C-alpha cells in the first residue's frame, strides 16, 4: 500500500501548542496503521506517523528509532520514507526528504534490532511525516494497539484485517473521558479503531506498568503457523492450562530427569519446609540468569548443563526438582507489576512475563522465583505484589491474587546521643530494616560495602559515622541491623543551635511533586517507619519552646504520622512514626497522598531550637 507523504494542512502548520496537553514538547498529529496478510500469511503492518515539534526540548524527537524483533528473522522493516517540513533562514517553508544513506540498521540485543534515522533541519515548528512497513512471519506477532503515547496524540487509528475464518476477539482498555470509534467492515473482513486527543502519559513515581494506563485495544486470535494453517483456538483458561501441561516448551520439561543433581542433601531433610528451602537454594546458587524473561524452556537439561538460562529455564528446573523432591508444586504464570496487570477475562498468554513455582505445604503457600537471589523464602517477590498469578495445573488450574498484608516495609531507627557545650552531637545509633525494606538494602550492601556505608550517611551532609557494623545478612527472618557511632555539629545561628532529627528514615526528599497524576500509586507493600531518639542536653543549651506534638491522619485513616517531643530533666525524647496501611492508592487519591507527604516532610524537617545561655 503506497500513500503519498509530505502533505501538511494549514491547521497543522499553524499549530503552536497541544490544546489538551499544553506542557508537551511535541505532539503526534496522527499515527495510522493498517495490518493485513499477504499470500504467505505474513503479518504486514503499514505505519504512517506525523509529528510536530512544539518546543526546543522536543527537537530530539526528530531522532527516531524503530525497534523490531529480529531473532530468527521474525520481523523486518522496509519502505522507510520520511519528509520534514521546516523553515529556511527567511522563515519560508521548505520540505526535505530523508536520504536513505542516513538510515542506520543495527542489532542491539540478542532478540532485537533497531532502525534509526534523524531528520535534517529540525526546528521548533517542524512537522515530520514518516511511513514504514513491518513484516512479521505470522499473525502470532500481533500486538496490542496503543492509542496513547508518551507524547500527546491527536489521532490514532488502526485497521486490522482478520485472517479468513479466524476466531477473533478484542478488548478495549480506556478511560471513560476518551471516546473510541470502532467500525467493523464485514466485506473486507477488517475492523477499524480510532481515538482522538489523548494527552501524553509520562513516567510517574510508584507507577506499575505504563501500558496498564495507556488507552489501548488487545487482540486475541487463534494461533497460526507460517502457512496460515489454523491451530486450535483456546477459549478457556482451563483448556489453556491443559494444553500448556502437554506443551514441549513447558509441561513436558517438568517430566524430564535432570542429570547430576545433588539430591542427597534434601532427601534426608527433616521437614517439607526444610526440603523446599534446600532445593530452592540449590537452584538459586547453581543457575545464572541471563536476564531474559521467559515462561518457556527449550530444554531444561541444556540449561542445567550450562548452569545458565532464561527465566523459564531456571524456574522450570526449580519446579521440576521440587516436584521430584515430593513437594506439592505447580507452575504459576505471573506478570510483574512493571509488566502490567493481567486481564483474566481472556485466556491470553502474552500477558505473563514469567513462570514461578507455587508450593503448598500444610495449607501454607509459597511463591518462589529462582532468578531472584535476595528474597527470602517466606516473602513473596516484591515485583509480584499486587498482581494476579495463574496456577497451571491439569486438574485445578486457577487464578490467585498475590498480595501481602502481613509483612511490610518496616524500618526502625534508634539514636542515643548527647550534645556538648559547643553544640556537637555524639552518640550511637541502630537502624533495623525488616522484610521488604531489607531486600534491596542487602543487595546494595553485598555489591559494595564501601559504597553502601558512604551512601548511608550521604543525605546528611554534616554527619560523620564510624564503627559501622552490619548484622542479619545471612538470616532469612532477622532484620538487616546497622550499628554505628555518629557525630554531628549542629548548625549555629547567633545564640541558637538547630537540632535536626530526621536521620536514616529514608525520608529525605518528597517523591510526590507533580500537580496531577494519571496512574495508580503502587507502593507494592505497606510501610512503617519508627524512630526513637534521645538527646542529652548540656547545661548551657536550653529549649526555647517545645515543638508541638503532631498527629497527621488522612481522611481514610490509611496514612498516619505522628511526632512526639518530650523533655525530662536534661533529656529530649523524640518519637516519630509514619505508617502507610495500604499498598495501592488510585490516581483520584493523589491529592490526599501528596498533601499527607508534604505535611510529613514539613514535620520531619522542622528543627528544634536550642538557645545557648552562656
Amino acid at each position, binding site marked *: 500500500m503506497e500513500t503519498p507523504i509530505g502533505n501538511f494542512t494549514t491547521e497543522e502548520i499553524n499549530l503552536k501548542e497541544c490544546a489538551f496537553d499544553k506542557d508537551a514538547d511535541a505532539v503526534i498529529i496522527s499515527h495510522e496503521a493498517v495490518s493485513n496478510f499477504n499470500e504467505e500469511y505474513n503479518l504486514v503492518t503499514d505505519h504512517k506517523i506525523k509529528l510536530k515539534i512544539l518546543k*526546543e526540548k522536543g527537537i530530539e524527537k526528530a531522532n527516531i528509532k524503530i525497534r523490531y524483533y529480529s531473532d530468527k528473522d521474525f520481523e523486518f522493516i522496509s519502505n522507510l520514507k520520511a519528509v520534514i517540513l521546516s523553515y529556511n533562514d527567511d522563515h519560508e517553508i521548505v520540505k526535505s526528504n530523508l536520504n536513505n544513506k542516513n538510515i542506520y540498521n543495527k542489532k542491539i540485543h540478542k532478540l532485537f534490532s533497531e532502525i534509526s534515522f534523524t531528520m535534517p533541519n529540525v526546528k521548533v515548528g517542524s512537522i515530520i511525516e514518516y511511513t514504514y512497513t513491518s513484516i512479521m512471519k505470522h499473525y502470532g506477532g500481533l500486538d496490542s494497539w496503543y492509542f496513547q503515547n508518551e507524547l500527546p496524540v491527536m489521532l490514532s487509528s488502526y485497521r486490522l484485517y482478520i485472517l479468513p475464518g479466524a476466531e477473533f476477539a478484542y478488548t478495549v482498555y480506556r478511560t471513560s473521558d476518551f471516546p473510541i470509534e470502532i467500525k467493523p467492515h464485514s466485506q473486507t473482513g477488517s475492523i477499524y479503531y480510532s481515538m482522538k486527543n489523548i494527552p501524553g502519559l509520562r513516567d510517574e513515581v510508584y507507577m506499575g506498568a505504563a501500558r496498564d494506563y495507556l488507552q489501548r485495544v488487545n487482540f486475541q486470535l487463534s494461533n497460526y503457523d507460517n502457512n496460515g494453517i489454523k491451530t486450535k483456538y483456546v477459549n478457556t483458561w482451563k483448556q489453556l492450562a491443559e494444553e500448556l501441561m502437554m506443551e514441549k516448551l513447558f509441561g513436558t520439561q517438568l517430566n524430564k530427569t535432570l542429570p547430576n543433581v545433588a539430591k542427597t542433601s534434601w532427601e534426608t531433610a527433616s521437614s517439607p519446609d526444610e526440603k523446599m528451602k534446600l532445593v530452592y537454594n540449590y537452584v538459586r546458587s547453581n543457575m545464572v540468569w541471563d536476564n531474559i524473561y521467559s515462561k518457556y524452556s527449550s530444554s531444561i537439561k541444556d540449561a542445567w548443563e550450562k548452569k545458565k538460562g532464561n527465566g523459564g529455564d531456571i524456574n522450570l528446573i526449580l519446579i521440576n526438582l521440587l516436584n521430584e523432591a515430593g513437594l506439592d508444586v505447580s507452575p504459576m504464570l505471573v506478570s510483574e507489576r512493571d509488566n502490567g496487570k493481567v486481564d483474566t477475562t481472556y485466556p491470553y498468554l502474552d500477558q505473563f512475563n514469567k513462570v514461578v513455582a507455587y508450593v503448598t505445604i500444610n495449607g501454607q503457600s509459597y511463591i518462589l522465583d529462582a532468578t531472584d537471589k535476595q528474597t527470602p523464602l517466606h516473602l513473596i517477590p516484591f515485583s509480584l505484589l499486587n498482581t494476579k498469578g495463574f496456577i497451571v495445573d491439569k486438574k485445578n488450574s486457577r487464578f490467585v491474587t498475590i498480595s501481602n498484608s502481613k509483612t511490610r516495609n518496616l524500618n526502625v531507627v534508634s539514636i542515643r546521643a548527647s550534645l556538648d557545650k559547643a553544640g556537637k552531637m555524639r552518640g550511637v545509633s541502630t537502624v533495623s530494616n525488616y522484610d521488604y525494606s531489607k531486600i534491596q538494602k542487602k543487595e546494595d550492601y553485598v555489591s559494595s560495602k564501601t559504597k553502601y556505608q558512604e551512601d548511608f550517611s550521604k543525605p546528611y551532609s554534616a554527619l560523620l559515622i564510624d564503627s559501622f557494623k552490619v548484622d542479619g545478612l545471612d538470616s532469612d527472618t532477622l532484620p538487616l541491623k546497622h550499628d554505628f557511632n555518629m557525630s554531628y555539629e549542629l548548625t549555629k545561628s547567633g545564640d541558637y543551635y538547630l537540632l535536626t532529627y530526621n536521620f536514616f528514615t529514608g525520608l529525605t526528599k518528597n517523591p510526590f511533586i507533580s500537580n496531577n497524576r494519571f496512574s495508580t500509586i503502587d507502593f507494592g507493600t505497606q510501610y512503617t517507619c519508627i524512630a526513637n531518639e534521645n538527646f542529652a542536653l548540656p547545661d548551657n543549651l536550653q529549649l526555647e519552646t517545645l515543638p508541638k506534638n503532631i498527629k497527621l491522619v488522612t481522611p481514610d485513616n490509611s496514612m498516619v504520622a505522628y511526632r512526639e517531643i518530650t523533655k525530662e530533666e536534661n533529656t529530649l525524647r523524640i518519637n516519630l512514626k509514619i505508617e502507610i496501611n495500604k499498598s495501592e492508592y488510585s490516581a483520584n487519591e493523589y491529592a490526599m497522598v501528596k498533601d499527607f507527604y508534604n505535611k510529613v516532610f514539613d514535620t520531619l524537617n522542622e528543627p528544634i531550637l536550642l538557645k545557648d545561655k552562656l
Partner: protein
Amino acid sequence: MKCIFGVVFFLLFIGNINSQQKDLVTYTAFTIADSLKKDANAIVRLDEGILDVVSNSKYILDVHQVVTILNAEGAYHLKHTLGFDKFYKIENVEIKVYNELGLLTKKYSRKDFDVQSAYDGVSFVTDEKLMYLYSPAPGYPCTVETNYQINATGYIDLPDWRINNNNSATEVFRYTVKVPEEIDIRYRTINLMISPLVTSEKKTKIYKWEANNISVKRLEEGGYEAGRYLPAVQIGANRFSYDGYDGELNNWKNFGKWSYPFYSEKKPFSDERMNELRAMTEKSGTLFEKVDVLYSYLKKNMRYVSIQLGIGGFKPFSARFVDEKKYGDCKALTNYMRNLLAVVGIPSYPALINAGYNKFPADSLFPSSPFNHVILCIPNKNDTIWLECTSNNARTGFLGSFTENKRALVITENGGVLVNTPPSVAANNKLVINNDIFLDVDGGAKVNTSLYGTGDFLLLLEEQKSIKVDEQKEFFVKYLDYKTPDDYK
C-alpha cells in the same frame, strides 16, 4: 572403579601442576600473601600483555590475565566485556574458571559471548560492538583466567598496560613490547618506578617491564579520572596508519599535520550562500561581534547528534552536509562554524580536547591521542575566543567545566599546537539564591525564591527553563533541597 578413577585423576593433577610451574601461574587461592589481601576484593595473580607491533598499521596484543576473586564484592571480575570494531578484532578468546583449590570448573569460548552494539550513552549511532560474558563463580574464593588476542589493523595509539589497584592487588605485572627497530616506540611509566629490560633480536627491539606485589591503593572521590593515579606503562607510537591515513605521533606538531586535512574542504558554500552569510555580519564591527552573530546563528539553527562511524572518530561530515541537514556531531559542527567564519574572513582552528570535568589534561611531553571532543579556537590578538559548537545556549566564548583548564591540540595548516584552555574563576561561577521570607502570625512563613547564576550555573538554570514545569519543580526539591513549591512561575 572408584579407586582407578582416583589414580588417573591424581596423575592428571600432577601434570597440571607441572605445567603451571612452568608458566609460574597459580590458580589456588591458598598461596596469596596476607599483606596483599589488605583492602582487596581480588588478587591479580598475573597480568601479562605481549604486544607485537608488526608495522605502522598493525599490531597483535596477547593478553593473559589470572585473577583470584576473594569475595562477592570482587564479582565484577566475572563480567567480561570486550569492545571491537573493523580495525580492532578480538580473537582466540578463552575464559577459564577455577575453584578455591585451583581445579578447573568451567571453560568458555567465543561462542558463549553475547554480542551487541556499543552504546556510549551519547551517540545516536556508532560503529563499535561489544561482546560480553558473565562467568558465574563456583563459590569464593575462585580464580578466573582470561586469554585473548587483539588484532589491530589500524591504530593511532598503542595500548598502555595499566594496573587497576583500586580494589585489587597484583602479584605479577608484565608487559612486553616487540617493535621493528625502524619504527620503535616512545615509553614512560606513571605512578610506577620501573625501567624496561631492552634487548634486540635481528631488527626487532624488545622491551620488557615487570613489577611484583603491588598492593591496593583506593582512589578518592573528587579527583581526576582514575588513569591519573593508577600505575601504568605508557607506550607511544612514532608512526601510525589508521584507515589508510599515515601519520606521525612523535610530536604534537606532526599529529596536528595528520588531522588537518580532515578539516579541509574546497568549496563548502555556493556564492549565493556566501553572500547571505556575509550579509549577516555586515553591521558588526569587531571580530568578536562577527563571531557572536555567526555563533548565534549556529546555536539557533543546528543541533547536535552524535554519529560515530568509520573514521568518524576523526573526520567530520562536510560543512555542506551540516548546512543542508542542520545537524552534526562535535566535529561536524566545529568544522561548519569554522567554514562560516572563513566566509567572513576570520581564520579559526579546530582544537582536539579531552573533555570532562575531571579529565586529566593532555601531556605536553608525551604526545598521544587522549581526545574525545573538538572545539573551535579563534585567534584574537591576546584574547583567543573559544567556541563550544555543540551547545544551543552557551554564551559566545564560554567553555564551562567540560573543556576549561585542559590542554587542547589546535590543528593548524602548519601542524598541531598544544595550548591551555583558559580556567574560569569561582567568581564567574556563581549561583545566587534570593529568598524573601514573609513570616505569619502563627510561626509559618511564605518564601519567595528567585535564582540567578553565572558560568556553569547559568547553563544549569537555562537547561531548567527548557523542561516541563513538574520537572522544574523536581529540580528544586531534589537538587536544591527545597520543599515542594506551592506556586511556581
